């Protein structure tokens, strides 16, 4: 089955992960800009990072037949440095012009401070002005409910195209307000700290599959790109058809990411051939 991994931190993973993903049906990944594990001090560090994910990483993925796309952002954890954020934002337009950059992400909130909210607003604003997609990170663990509410409040105060905004890492307590407000949402599958494959399928069964993306993020922390495949198996073993699985794990990413014409992978439909057509 063909799968798209819409949130994947490839630079933190090995070539073997690309190889195994290719062997398990992954045809494309999209890599949002991420926190490096420490707070970066210089705009140039970000610029080189953006060059890495928009220029170099597609070549590494291509060796395994996987398409690689990316996003640019100052991570919410680093938004406490407004001067740095402003300087980096100035460079976004040059990356929007790159052939595989899909938009702004992952911006969002970590501790939901005033500086973080200002940075989120600035990120969404520049994305909307340049017709870009937006990927928004919502906080971890105990900060999630409050942080998601703040994300929705910040967005509600702006003139945004909700079809082009994906609020990620939603869980049972935060999915409904995000969907009700008209945004896309994402389930991020982690071994311990975010959603699990089984809980993701529970939510797919409860809320339907419209405007939902499933990803495994897979960064340098405890994470596993193959939680996405675990989720596919869990979905299928509950009796959902192959086409239904394709809608969630391949076609929905095509629908959201394909709003940027650079993402040119089309939704697919499985077809059973008749005996006559097979024999001709």
């Amino acid at each position, binding site marked *: 089955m063909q799968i798209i991994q819409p949130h994947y931190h490839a630079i933190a993973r090995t070539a073997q992960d690309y190889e195994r993903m290719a062997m398990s049906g992954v045809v494309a990944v999209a890599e949002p800009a991420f926190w490096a594990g420490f707070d970066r001090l210089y705009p140039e560090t970000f610029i080189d990072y953006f060059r890495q994910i928009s220029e170099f990483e597609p070549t590494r993925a291509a060796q395994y037949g996987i398409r690689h796309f990316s996003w640019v952002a100052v991570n919410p954890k680093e938004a406490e440095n407004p001067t740095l954020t402003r300087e980096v934002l100035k460079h976004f337009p040059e990356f929007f012009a790159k052939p595989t950059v899909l938009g702004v992400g992952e911006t969002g909130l970590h501790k939901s401070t005033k500086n973080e909210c200002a940075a989120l607003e600035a990120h969404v604003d520049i994305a909307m002005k340049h017709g870009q997609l937006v990927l928004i990170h919502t906080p971890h*663990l105990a900060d999630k409910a409050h942080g998601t509410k703040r994300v929705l409040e910040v967005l509600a105060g702006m003139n945004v195209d909700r079809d082009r905004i994906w609020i990620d890492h939603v869980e049972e307590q935060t999915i409904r307000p995000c969907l009700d407000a008209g945004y896309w949402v994402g389930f991020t599958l982690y071994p*311990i700290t975010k959603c*699990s494959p*089984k*809980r993701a399928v*529970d939510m797919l069964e409860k809320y339907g599959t419209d405007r939902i993306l499933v990803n495994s993020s897979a960064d340098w922390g405890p994470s596993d790109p193959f939680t996405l495949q675990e989720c596919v198996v869990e979905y299928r073993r509950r009796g959902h058809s192959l086409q239904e699985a394709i809608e969630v794990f391949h076609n929905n990413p095509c629908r959201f990411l394909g709003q940027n014409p650079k993402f040119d992978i089309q939704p697919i439909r499985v077809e059973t051939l008749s005996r006559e057509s097979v024999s001709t």
Partner: protein
Amino acid sequence: MLPAALVAENYFLESRHMLLEIAAHIDRYEAAVAREATPGGEAKHVGEVRHVGEHKMARLREALAILAEPRADRERTVALLELFGRD
């Protein structure tokens, strides 16, 4: 051996994860029961199979009650193994 504070800290997220999985399992079961109870619902499992399912979920609830008890006279792991050993 680890001090108490570290025992709490080091295994907290793992236990949180397992409790969420249990909560989701119970929610999933109750959603299925509600779905099957509606007119025209998918009553795939009836009779003995349904009874076994109810029994297993009752056992899980008993186990959760044991975990919630503020008792130090007995190891919870042993109590749960004995509980599940009754079947």
